[in-house]
Each structure stands twice: as C-alpha cells, then as structure tokens.
C-alpha cells in the first residue's frame, strides 16, 4: 500500500448543543456566561489512514459523524483533539457555487471562486475555457450569476471545483447534479481522477454506487470508527449490522379501498427458511402470504400482488387468475401464498401491493397499495445496476 494521503489521528470533535441558544449580550451578562449547553461528541477518537490514490468511502447512518469528519479533513472545522494531516492540495465539493457573488458575472465568479479554492490567476486563465466548456454555459458566462438557473449555478460550481485539479477531492453526496448528460460527464471526470492516481473521499448513503466507485471505506457509528478496510467487506458488514427488520404493517386509509366483502388482514414475506422477514438477497426464494377474511362466501375470487420501487415504478404483478389458481369459492379467515423461486431484483427497497378482486377483475373487494416493504441485498446473480436482475452472462469474445 502506498503512503497515506490523509492521516486521521485520534480525531475528536465536540459540538455544543445549546439548551437556550441565546446570543444576546443581555443573556450573557445575566447568566454570567454565554449560555448553558450540553456537549455532544460528533467524533470520538477516530484514527485511520486514507491511502494515496484510493477512492475512499465514508459510510454510516445519519448523524454518525461522516460529514463532520469530512469537514475536519477539509479544515472547515477544527478537531478538539487529535489532528488531520493531508498531503497535497485539497478541494471540497460540499456545496457548489457557495462562494458566488450574485451580482458578478459567471466569468468574474470563476476567478473569485477559483482563488478561494486555491488557484492562481495564471492557472485559472489557462483553465478558464475548460471550465466554461465543462459547465456547458458558454453563452451565459458574462451574465450575472443571479440570473442563472439553479442547475447552471451548481454546474459552474462543479466545473470550477473539479477543474482546479486538486490532489485530494472531498465529495459530500452531491453528485445528483444537473441532467443525465452532465452526471455522466462528472462520472467520467471521477474515473479520470482515479486513473490519474488522485485521492477521492466520498460521503454517501448510496451503497450501490459506493461499492462500484470506492476501493476502501470507513464505517462510522455515533462518532466512532467501527471498521475500515476494503469497500466490499466494510459495506457488507455495515449493511448486515444496520439493517433493521421493518415492522410489517398494514397501511391506513389513503392507500386502501374496496367494497369490503373480503379484507386483507396481513401480508407476510417469508424467506427460504420459512421465516418471516423483510430482507432478501438477489436470487433468494420469496414467498408472499396473504392473510384474508372473507365476510361472505365469494365465488372465484382473484388475489393480486404487485411490486414497485420506492419511487413508484411498477415492476411486476401477478394475480391468481393469470397464475391459473382459481378456487371455486372462499369463505371465512385463511391465507394464500404466492412463491417466487428466485427473486430477480437487484439491491434496493421495494413495495408490495396486494388486492382481492372478483373473477372479472373489475370489482375490488380490498386493495392495499404499498402495504409492506422489503429490502434486497446483494446476492446472486450479482449485476451492475437497475432494479431488476436478468441473470445475464458475458462471453463469446471474438477478435476479427
């Protein structure tokens, strides 16, 4: 392993949580001190090295101190104990375009922002065209930036930050910038960075993209370092440890309708071991059990199940009529199961919708949209992106 680009040595950072945040002089004089506050350790004795040339992920739940650590590395915050030693010029992409002066033109702001990020005038002049080109706002560069759309604003900010060519780049969950084409440009730029052997530190909650981008990762929990190592190992351990079983709940009204002759009491997700779970791996067996109560005898009822992504993309549905499972009639309480032998979904979180309808599927007895959720973790087949796994394979290379 090469030398460390950043050494984090016993870093602790304490924040003051003011019980009564009062910054007035009167309050200060009356109390005899500024204010009463409680101390809160955002970081506690964190030590690790970030090797030069690595793409390093910082993971952890909200409030675990990732961003605080990133700000300590960026020198925006000063640790109360310990120190951070960084070798080489450092640029932090925390909030893009934060130093822009709204009344000044884009051109003037490039020079202003660039110098704040540590670049001299000559270097900036040399890179100016590249920056403007990258941001894709050539025709607006002499307009005051207050007339820019928010997209143009961050694009220019990003273009400056990435083109000042730092040896170490700190990124805080900001890659959702601009349209797809611009995002692609950013990703390409990051790839170039890694190829050039520069160090990138990323804070993110998107485990999928972390896994594909980073080679090393550190996991923080409540300000303390839990684990540091290769991304695959750290992320797996993190996902395993932090996964909370979701309580299975039947959602309330707005997502439920139907005439009510038959009702769904519960929708259970059952894994290959026959145990109720809300967490599956790609390729694992999934059984969905619908507990129902038919308040009267109904002939040829049809049970329906559907899966959507969290943002509502409709991925799959199967009702029992298409599944060629049509009971003559049902009455009273009971349950029915639908089994998927191998769950062909890639890692993510998904919603389940369940319904009971009549044989014509035009009359709804009970319909529960998004009544339960489950998470899919990495399994087999292991594929690269998107919600569905198709089990593809590469081969048949021919050189002509």
């Amino acid at each position, binding site marked *: 392993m090469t030398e460390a680009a950043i050494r984090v040595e016993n870093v602790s950072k304490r924040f003051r949580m003011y019980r009564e945040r009062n910054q007035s002089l009167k309050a200060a004089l009356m109390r005899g001190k500024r204010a009463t506050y409680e101390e809160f350790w955002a970081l506690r004795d964190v030590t690790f090295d970030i090797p030069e040339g690595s793409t390093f992920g910082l993971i952890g739940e909200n409030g675990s101190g990732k961003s605080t650590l990133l700000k300590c590395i960026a020198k925006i915050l000063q640790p109360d104990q310990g120190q951070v030693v960084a070798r080489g010029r450092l640029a*932090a992409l*925390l909030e893009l375009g934060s130093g822009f002066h709204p009344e000044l033109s884009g051109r003037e702001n490039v020079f202003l922002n660039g110098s704040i990020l540590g670049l001299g005038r000559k270097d900036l002049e040399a890179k100016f065209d590249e920056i403007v080109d990258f941001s894709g706002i050539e025709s607006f560069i002499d307009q005051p930036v207050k007339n820019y759309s928010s997209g143009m604003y961050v694009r220019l900010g990003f273009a400056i930050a990435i083109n000042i060519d730092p040896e170490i780049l700190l990124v805080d969950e900001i890659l959702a910038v601009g349209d797809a084409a611009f995002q692609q440009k950013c990703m390409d730029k990051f790839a170039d960075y890694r190829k050039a052997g520069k160090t990138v530190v990323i804070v993110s909650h998107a485990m999928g993209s972390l896994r594909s981008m980073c080679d090393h990762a550190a996991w923080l929990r409540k300000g303390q370092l839990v684990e540091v190592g290769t991304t695959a190992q750290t992320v797996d351990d993190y996902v395993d440890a932090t996964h909370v079983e979701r309580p299975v709940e039947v959602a309330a009204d707005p997502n439920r309708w139907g005439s009510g002759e038959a009702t769904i009491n519960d929708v259970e997700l059952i894994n290959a071991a026959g145990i109720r779970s809300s967490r599956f791996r790609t390729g694992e067996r999934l059984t969905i059990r619908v507990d129902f109560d038919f308040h009267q005898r109904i002939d040829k009822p049809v049970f329906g199940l559907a899966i959507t992504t969290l943002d509502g993309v409709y991925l799959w549905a199967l009702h029992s009529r298409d599944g060629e499972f049509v009971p003559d009639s049902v009455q009273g309480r009971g349950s029915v199961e639908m089994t998927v032998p191998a769950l062909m979904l890639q890692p993510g979180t998904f919603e389940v919708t369940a319904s009971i309808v009549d044989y014509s599927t035009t009359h709804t007895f009970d319909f529960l949209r998004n009544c339960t959720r489950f998470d899919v973790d990495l399994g087999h087949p292991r594929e690269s992106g998107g919600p569905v796994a198709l089990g593809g394979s590469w081969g048949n290379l021919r050189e002509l």
Partner: protein
Amino acid sequence: MSLSSDLRASREILSNLTMREVRGKYKRSFFGQAWSLLNPIASLTIYTIVFGFVLRATPPPGEPSGIDVFTLWLACALLPWNFFSATVLGGMSALLGNAGLIQKVYFPRYTLVVANMFAGLVTFGFELLVLAGIAVIFGSNIWIWIPLVLVFVALLALFGLGIGLMLSIANVYFRDTAQFVGILMQVWFYATPIVYPVTLIVAAEADMRENGNDFPLLWFYQLNPMERFVQIFRDLLYDNRLPPWGDMAYCLGATAVSLGLGAWVFSKYQARIAEEL
C-alpha cells in the same frame, strides 16, 4: 504560520475578494462607481450647511497654508473617518455576511476582513486623490507631505483592521455587537474633532477651570486615537505642516495595540467560527 507569510499565500484570494466588494457594491445602480464619490460629497454638503452655516463652527485658517475653506477643512477629517468607519463596520460583518462560504470552503478566514479593508482603501484612495486635487487648487502645498500621508493612510487602515478583526469575531459570538457598535461609532464620531475644531474643547476646559473644576478634559479627549489621526491628516493636507511627533508616535502605538490585539483575538477564536455561525 505567521500572519505575513499567510498573507502572501492568500494574495490571490484577497485581490479577488476585494474586487468582489468593490464591483459588487454599486452593481446595477445607475451611477455605479460614481456613488463612491457622490456619497462623501453629499455628507460634506450636509455637514457644511449644518456646522459651517447654521452652527457656525469656525476653524482657524490653515497654518502655514493660509487656506480658510470650511468644506475642505471638514473633508480632511471626514474622509479618513469614513474610511475608518467603513473598515470597522464592514470588517465586523465580514464573517457573518459570508457564513455560507465559511461553512463550505476552507480558506484563511481573515482574508474576508482584510478584503473589506482593501475595498474601503480603494474608495478612500480615489477620494483622497480628488481631495488633494481640490486642496491644491485652493493653494495647499501638499507635495512634500505625500509620503507622510501615505504612511498614515496605511496606519489608519491597520488601526481600523485591528478593531475590525476583533469585532468580526465578537459579532459571531454575540449578535448584539452590530447594534452596539452602530451606536458606539456615532458617539465616537462626535467625540472626534471632525465637524468642529478642537479649539472648542480647549475653550470648554478653560470655562470649567474658571468655575473651579480642574477636570483635564483635553487630556481625556486626546486619548482617542482617532483625534490624533484626523489632526494629523489636517496638519498634512490642510495646514501643510509636520504633525507633532507625539501625535504620530501615539498613532503608531495605537495601531500596534489594535492590530496586535485584533490578530490575537482573531487567531484564538477563528477555529470555531464555522460551527458558531
């Protein structure tokens, strides 16, 4: 890291931030940069009417220059005061006003306060040029005093900067500072012989002595470093004489204390400002 080596390293930032202040200030106003001259002309006119005509403050004519123009006499003190006031008040809000920047990017924080001072210096420089031109027209012989004027412009800038550095920090920790200082600066303005001659204070002390009160009014009055500064600028620009050595030494001392204290306070507390903002 010493302040001066740090200063050199951040020259680029400073020049850009200064440009931002100077260009941003009057952007989109119809008269643009002309306002930086129109503003002092307006206040000179007001003070000339109120104190020159209505209250009839009569400063002694320039000695040895022999000039006797109230407005010119006023400008020789008012313009340095305006610069000082802008340095202090602007410096005070420099950190708070750039909270977004401070919380997102690391760069030497004092550059914000220093850039504000430089922006004021640019304006003051133009004003001084115009003032010098007018003074020459009225018969002031300022040429040999130019080096000393420049020295005291620099000292005044550093004196104001020291106070600005202290207040910028105080303003982050106590938001009352801005209000408080606003009032204080008004008091300070009238406690400095800008719109009236210092001879009025001498006369007041003589009156008090006649009434059996031996209070050393003038001594107290002259503790104010700005009193010395404006007198020095008047000596140089209006009277064309060498200011008393004592005054010059006092200004130098006051500047050293202000800047030393300002730099100390600032470096002691700057580390925490990103989280206190």
